[in-house]
C-alpha cells in the first residue's frame, strides 16, 4: 500500500483557513473570501496531483494511505486517525474540491452585499474540510467525524440568515432529521465493532465472508438509516425542501452536489456489507424507488424554483440509492450518476441563484416568465443542465441515468420489470417537472409585476456556471466512454468482476425506451404550460397536486406521529421532574425550614421565659438523676 503525506493537507488547509477566518474577525473582512477560495483551489490542486500520481501506478498500488496519529489505543483496540485515498474517494475529492472551488468563486459575487460574507466563507471551508474527511477516512469512526462535521456545516449554512425565524427553524429541522440518521450510523459502528472487533473498512472487508448474515443485515440496515437521513431519502426527506432557506451557493454545493450524496458514498463504500446482506439490499432498492417517485411528484407541484430543484435532487439521489441496491454492477453507475448530477444540478442551482440575483431574490416561478430574453447566458447554461438532467443524448444525464435504468431491467424477473418501469416512469416525471421549471422561468408571459427589467449577473458568477455546464454536457460521455468509470472503480466495488446475469434487455432498447419516456414527459409539460401562466397559484387543483404542494404530507405525518407524541412525552417527563423529583427536594428543604421556624419560637428575647426554661431544665435533670439513682 502506497503512503503519501499530502492527504492530511487536503483536510487541514480548509480547516485552518476556516478557523483563521472565524478567529480573525472583522480584520479578515477584506481578504477572507479570497483566502478561502485560494485554499479550496489548492485542495483541488492536491486532488489533481494525487489523481495523476494514482494513474501512474498499477491497479493494485493505486490506493494511498496516510496515518496521521493514533487516535484511540486501549488494550487490543486501536483506532488510527488515518486517511485512505482510493479510486472511489478520489472521485469525491475532485468533485468536492472542484465544484467547491467554483462555488467559492461564484459566492464572492453572490454574497458581495452580505455583511457576513467572511463568516459564510469560513463555514464553506469548514464544510469542505469535513466532507473531505468523510470521504477520506479509512474507518467508520473517521468517517463518522466527517459525517457529523458536514451536518454541522450544513446546519450553520442553512441557518446562515438566522435573523429570520423561519430559516433558523429550517436549520434545526435539517439538523434533527440528520441526527436520526446519525444514530443509525453510530449503531452500525457499534454492531460492526461487536461483530468484527474492528471498524476499518479493510478489516471488516477481510472478515466479511465469515460474519453471520443477521449481523450483516443489521449493520446494512443501520447504514441505510444513516444514508436515508443524510441523503434526504424517504422517510427522512422532509428537511431538504426547507434547507433551501440557505444561500443559493449552499444549496448548490451542499444540498445538491456533495453532502446529500454522502449516503450514496456510504453504501458504495460499504459494498462488502450490502453484498452479504440481500435483505438490506432489497430495502435499499425499495427506499430508492419510493424516493425517486416521491421526489418527482413533489417537484411537479412546487412553484418555488429552489424547492422544485430540491425535490429533483431528492428524486435523482433516489436513482443513485436504487443503483447501489442493485449489487456490484450498480455501484459504479450510482457513482457515475452522482458525478454527473453534481455537475448539472450545481450548474442549475447556480443558474437559479443567478435568476434570483437578477429578480430581487424572488423565488416564486409564477412571478418569473420570459427571463430567457434578459438573461441569455443564464438561460443557455441552465438549458444545458436541463437537457442533462432529463437525459437527452448526448448530455451527461443520459449516460448515467440510462445505465441505471438498464441495470434495473437486468435485475431479473418481476423485480427487474417493476424497477425498470419505475425508473422509466421517474424519467418521464423528471422530464415533465424540469420542462415546467424551464418554461415557467425562461419562457412565456412576463409576470414579475414591477418595471425593473431583470439583469444578467456579473462575470464572476457566470464563469463558474459555464464551467459546470461544460461538465454537465461532457462528463457523462467521458465517464461512460470505454467503461472508464466502471473499470476505474472495479477494484473497489466489484472486485469479483460480476456481470449482469444475462442481458435481458438490450442496451439499445433501454436507451430508446428512456428517450421515449423523456419525450413523453417533455411534450405533456409543453402542452400544459404553453399558454398564459397565472401569476397566482391556482386554488382549485386535484388532490395529488394539493398533496404534492404539501410535500405529500410527510411533514404532517412526522408532526402527528413523532413530534406531538414526543412533545407530550417530554411534557409529562417535565411534569414528573417538576412535581415528583423537585417535590422531594423541596420537601427536605421544607422540613428543615419548618424545624427552624418552630425552634425559633424559644428564642423570644424574654428573660423570664429563659429563666422558666432553666428551671424546667434543672427540674428535668433532677428528676432524671433521682429516677436513675433509685
Amino acid at each position, binding site marked *: 500500500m502506497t503512503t503519501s503525506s499530502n492527504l492530511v493537507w487536503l483536510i487541514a488547509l480548509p480547516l485552518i483557513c476556516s478557523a483563521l477566518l472565524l478567529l480573525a474577525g472583522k480584520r479578515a473582512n477584506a481578504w477572507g473570501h479570497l483566502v478561502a477560495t485560494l485554499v479550496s483551489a489548492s485542495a483541488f490542486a492536491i486532488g489533481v496531483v494525487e489523481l495523476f500520481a494514482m494513474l501512474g501506478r498499477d491497479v493494485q498500488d493505486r490506493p494511498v494511505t496516510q496515518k496521521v496519529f493514533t487516535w484511540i489505543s486501549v488494550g487490543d483496540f486501536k483506532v488510527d486517525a488515518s486517511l485512505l485515498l482510493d479510486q472511489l474517494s478520489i472521485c469525491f475529492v475532485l468533485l468536492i474540491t472542484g465544484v467547491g472551488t467554483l462555488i467559492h468563486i461564484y459566492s464572492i459575487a453572490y454574497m458581495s452585499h452580505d455583511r457576513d460574507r467572511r463568516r459564510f466563507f469560513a463555514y464553506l471551508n469548514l464544510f469542505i474540510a469535513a466532507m473531505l474527511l468523510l470521504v477520506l477516512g479509512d474507518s467508520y469512526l473517521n468517517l463518522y467525524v466527517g459525517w457529523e462535521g458536514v451536518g454541522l456545516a450544513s446546519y450553520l449554512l442553512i441557518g446562515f440568515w438566522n435573523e429570520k425565524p423561519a430559516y433558523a427553524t429550517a436549520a434545526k429541522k435539517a439538523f434533527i432529521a440528520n441526527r436520526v440518521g446519525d444514530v443509525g450510523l453510530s449503531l452500525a459502528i457499534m454492531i460492526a465493532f461487536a461483530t468484527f472487533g474492528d471498524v476499518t473498512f479493510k478489516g471488516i472487508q477481510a472478515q466479511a465472508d465469515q460474519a453471520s448474515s443477521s449481523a450483516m443485515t443489521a449493520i446494512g440496515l443501520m447504514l441505510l438509516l444513516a444514508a436515508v437521513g443524510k441523503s434526504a431519502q424517504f422517510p427522512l426527506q422532509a428537511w431538504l425542501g426547507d434547507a433551501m432557506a440557505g444561500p443559493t451557493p449552499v444549496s448548490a454545493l451542499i444540498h445538491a452536489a456533495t453532502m446529500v450524496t454522502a449516503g450514496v458514498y456510504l453504501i458504495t463504500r460499504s459494498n462488502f456489507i450490502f453484498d452479504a446482506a440481500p435483505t438490506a439490499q432489497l430495502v435499499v432498492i425499495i427506499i430508492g424507488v419510493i424516493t425517486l417517485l416521491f421526489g418527482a411528484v413533489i417537484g411537479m407541484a412546487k412553484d418555488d424554483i429552489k424547492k422544485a430543484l430540491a425535490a429533483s435532487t431528492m428524486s435523482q439521489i433516489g436513482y443513485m440509492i436504487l443503483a447501489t441496491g442493485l449489487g456490484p454492477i450498480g455501484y459504479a453507475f450510482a457513482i457515475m450518476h452522482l458525478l454527473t448530477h453534481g455537475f448539472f444540478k450545481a450548474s442549475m442551482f447556480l443558474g437559479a441563484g443567478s435568476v434570483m440575483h437578477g429578480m430581487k431574490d424572488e423565488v416564486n416561478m409564477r412571478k418569473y416568465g420570459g427571463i430567457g430574453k434578459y438573461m441569455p447566458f443564464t438561460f443557455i447554461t441552465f438549458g444545458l443542465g436541463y437537457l442533462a438532467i432529463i437525459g437527452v443524448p448526448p448530455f451527461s444525464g443520459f449516460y448515467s441515468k440510462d445505465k441505471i435504468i438498464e441495470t434495473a431491467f437486468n435485475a431479473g424477473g418481476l423485480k427487474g420489470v417493476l424497477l425498470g418501469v419505475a425508473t422509466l416512469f421517474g424519467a418521464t416525471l423528471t422530464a415533465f417537472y424540469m420542462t415546467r421549471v424551464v418554461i415557467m422561468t425562461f419562457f412565456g408571459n412576463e409576470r414579475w409585476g414591477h418595471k425593473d427589467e431583470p439583469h444578467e449577473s456579473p462575470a464572476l458568477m457566470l464563469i463558474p456556471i459555464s464551467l459546470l455546464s461544460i461538465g454537465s454536457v461532457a462528463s457523462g460521455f467521458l465517464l461512460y466512454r470505454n467503461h472508464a468509470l466502471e473499470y476505474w472503480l472495479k477494484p473497489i466495488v466489484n472486485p469479483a468482476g460480476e456481470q449482469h446475469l444475462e442481458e435481458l434487455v438490450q442496451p439499445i432498447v433501454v436507451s430508446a425506451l428512456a428517450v421515449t419516456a423523456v419525450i413523453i414527459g417533455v411534450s405533456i409539460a409543453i402542452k400544459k404550460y404553453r399558454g398564459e401562466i397565472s401569476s397566482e397559484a391556482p386554488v382549485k387543483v386535484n388532490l395529488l397536486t394539493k398533496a404534492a404542494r404539501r410535500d405529500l404530507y410527510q411533514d404532517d405525518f412526522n408532526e402527528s406521529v413523532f413530534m406531538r407524541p414526543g412533545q407530550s412525552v417530554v411534557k409529562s417527563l417535565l411534569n414528573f421532574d417538576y412535581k415528583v423529583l423537585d417535590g422531594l427536594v423541596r420537601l427536605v428543604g421544607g422540613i428543615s425550614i419548618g424545624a427552624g421556624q418552630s425552634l425559633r419560637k424559644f*428564642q*423570644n*428575647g*424574654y*428573660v*423570664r421565659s429563659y*429563666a*422558666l426554661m432553666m*428551671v424546667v431544665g434543672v427540674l428535668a435533670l433532677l428528676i432524671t438523676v433521682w429516677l436513675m439513682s433509685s
Partner: protein
Amino acid sequence: MSIANYLYLSAILFTIGAVGVVVRRNAIVVFMCIELMLNAANLAFVTFARINGNLDGQVVAFFTMVVAACEVVVGLAIIVTIYRSRRSASVDDASLLKR
C-alpha cells in the same frame, strides 16, 4: 424539732424565689427573688454542715454571701443604667437582643 425542717424551709424559700423570678416583671423584685434563692441555698449549706458535723458547708455559705454581694453590685448597676436609658425597670422591655 427535726433537723429536716430546715431543709424543707430552704426548699420552700428556693421555690418562692424561683417562682418570683419567673412571674414578676419588675427587675428589682426579680433581683430580690434571686437573693432569696441564694439565701435558701445558704440555709441548705449550713444545715448540711450541721448534719455532717464539719465546717465545709459554713465555709461555702460565706463564699456564697461574697458572690451574692458582688452580684448585687453588678446587677443593681445594670438595672439602674437600664432604668436611666429606657425609663422602665421591666425585664420584658429589655428584649432588644431578639431583634
